[in-house]
């Protein structure tokens, strides 16, 4: 008797366990992994990194909502993935050949594998929609092998020097130093007067590579150097390039950075500057909204580009920039989905989007008129960055070589490596790529 009672108990528990599994399975049996098109309705999946509460993220989400209102027959199923993990997810999905129908992609070296794997659909036949407002230069990062794969939504200049005008005035510079020698002189004077010259948050390692090296290498070796390296016409070990890397060493030896540079993230680096604890911060044009546009005391800060270098082969007026957030369509869609996806793209990335972004203080890659009511800060930024664009390091150089560079730059700041060694390591990493 007792046995049966306990058997029952065991059975009961077993069935509860089974039930949880089954309900869990059934609870979402309507899941549509790939976008589906039944009858008139079309559902498209879209993966994007616009989750944090930002000005431009709000603009993007509002446009998706507006599109769905305009096209009740098309549903955009959003998969918002936090920016820091977005690439991890994109790469895993790509490895399993399972990209979303609509994706946000990065240009150049990041785009290359997706194209090589035939995961994205070329959109050349539709370019008439954008060719009048976007220059070839703006589109170049998303063009591979002569085919266009994505349309960018915003332009990021990565090498803007934000500086504290009062602090510079204090050490005798009413304008930002024009030459590298003056720049170093200013740093020494700032240091002597007890001010941290540059705030840096390099824990995630990209700032020294993206914001610093991109600008410095432009001054020393010019815009086409990286392309030459990729074509094996130049090497990182060329003396001019080693000199460029030497700038990071010189700045480190001068103790130009805050002591916590390698364990603060980029946001903490910004904060440090905004709080008036450092005289300069080098970062992208995007953070202007935090440093000046939405900051009541924003007029304390000025913007500049990296100064010119004597004997340098590049152009001191150029800013390093990259067109970002390319909207791309998966190659794995049926005709109906394809039509819907293109419809979405035409609506999502158009002149209105760029205008909205500009009115929020975001720099865009398109030739649209800057509205009269745009922020003065934005106009200043556009003026500063409109004299030519040079490439960003990691948009040309493959990811695994970039990570050797990033680690090495960090090693230089803690005195564990010399520029010569780093140049050798990076070149070896590039040569050793399979």
């Amino acid at each position, binding site marked *: 008797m007792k046995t049966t009672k306990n058997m029952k108990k065991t059975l009961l528990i077993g069935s509860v366990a089974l039930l949880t599994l089954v309900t869990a399975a059934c609870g979402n049996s309507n899941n549509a992994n790939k976008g589906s098109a039944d009858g008139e309705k079309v559902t498209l999946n879209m993966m994007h990194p616009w989750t944090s509460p930002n000005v431009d993220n709000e603009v993007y989400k509002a446009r998706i909502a507006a599109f769905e209102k305009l096209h009740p027959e098309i549903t955009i199923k959003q998969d918002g993935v936090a920016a820091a993990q977005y*690439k*991890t997810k994109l*790469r*895993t999905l*790509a*490895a399993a050949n399972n990209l979303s129908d609509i994706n946000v992609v990065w240009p150049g070296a990041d785009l290359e*594998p*997706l194209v*090589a*794997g035939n*995961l994205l659909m070329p959109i050349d036949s539709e370019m008439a929609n954008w060719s009048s407002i976007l220059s070839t230069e703006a589109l170049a990062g998303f063009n591979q092998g002569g085919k266009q794969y994505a349309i960018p939504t915003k332009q990021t200049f990565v090498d803007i020097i934000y500086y504290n005008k009062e602090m510079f005035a204090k050490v005798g510079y009413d304008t930002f130093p024009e030459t590298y020698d003056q720049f170093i002189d200013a740093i020494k004077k700032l240091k002597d007067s007890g001010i941290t010259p540059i705030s840096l948050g390099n*824990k*995630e*390692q990209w700032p020294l590579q993206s914001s610093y090296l991109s600008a410095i290498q432009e001054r020393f070796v010019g815009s086409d150097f990286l392309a030459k390296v990729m074509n094996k016409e130049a090497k990182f070990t060329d003396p001019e390039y080693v000199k460029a890397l030497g700038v990071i060493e010189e700045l480190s030896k001068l103790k130009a950075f*805050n*002591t*916590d*540079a*390698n*364990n*603060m993230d980029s946001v903490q680096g910004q904060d440090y500057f905004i709080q008036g*604890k450092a005289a300069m911060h080098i970062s992208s044009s995007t953070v202007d909204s935090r440093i000046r546009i939405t900051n009541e005391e924003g007029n304390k800060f000025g913007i500049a580009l990296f100064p010119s270098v004597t004997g340098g082969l590049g152009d001191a007026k150029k800013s390093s920039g990259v067109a970002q957030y390319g909207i791309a369509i998966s190659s794995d869609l049926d005709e109906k989905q394809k039509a819907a996806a293109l419809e979405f793209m035409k609506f999502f990335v158009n002149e209105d989007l760029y205008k909205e972004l500009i009115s929020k203080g975001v720099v865009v890659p398109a030739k649209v008129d800057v509205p009269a009511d745009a922020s003065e800060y934005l106009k200043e930024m556009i003026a500063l960055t409109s004299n030519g664009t040079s490439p960003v390091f990691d948009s040309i150089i493959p*990811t*695994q070589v970039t*990570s050797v560079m990033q*680690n*090495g730059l*960090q*090693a230089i*700041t*803690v005195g*564990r*490596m010399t520029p010569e060694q780093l140049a050798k390591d990076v070149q070896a990493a590039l040569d050793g790529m*399979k």
Partner: protein
Amino acid sequence: MHTLKGTKYAIFFGLLPALIIYLGIAVVPIGMSAYYSFMNWDGIHPMTFTGFDNFTEIFKDSIFWLSVKNNMIILLTGVLGQIPLGLLLALLLNRSMKGAGFFRTIGFLPVVISSVMVSLIFGTVYNTEYGLLNSILGSVGLDSWQQNWLGDTKWSMFSISVAYIWQNCGFFMVIFLAALQNIPNEVNEAAELDGASGLNKVMRITIPMIRGTILIAVVFSISNSFRVFDLIQIMTGGGPAHATEVMTVYMYNNAFVNMRFGYGSAVSVLILIFSLIVVTIVNRLGKEKA
């Protein structure tokens, strides 16, 4: 030992569901990953077989060996830091004393908070300029002890180890508490009748009684130390200049940042082999002594 009819079937059916899920979702992926470790694969282009190339490249990479060394530091920190501290706390709290329940709850807090939080907290504790640690040292006149705790490669591993102990010792406290409470009261009473008390009792009676649990804790701590990831990834990202990189971070960077899934898989195979070796040795030693 049971001579019941049908025991064999009972064993089979009792183990079956766990085995099916485990084999299908854990063992098969491990096998797949072992397979990838012999491939050159970026996740997109077709895989190509490269034999032991990945492994020879790993063994030649000094950064890998640095990460192995850091793993050993974490391992020792776990075994020599977390376990004794957890055991001490459990022994102190396994008595009728005021506030024991309160301390038990508090002791477990670090285990439940996510690594994001732990990293945020320790980031501010270790900050050189306004960090808590340097402020405290400064306020008691120990200015010379102030350090760049995470940024200086001499100190960064040490600082991480402290955070690692803090995060996990509460867990071992709970494990040991559970074991201590399972010691029958008669044993304690008998020991007290024999005149054993205090430290003497602990060493002679209590510790031998929970020897099995201690061995479990050591093995668990070792396996944890080989898998530590979040804490380091968020706190320092493995930097500065690889100084705090452990094997899992090394693997993750190669597989998911550099998109070398084959190479990353080879690293994970090595992690598995290394931890198997260490765990087997510890298990042998533990059993021999018993």
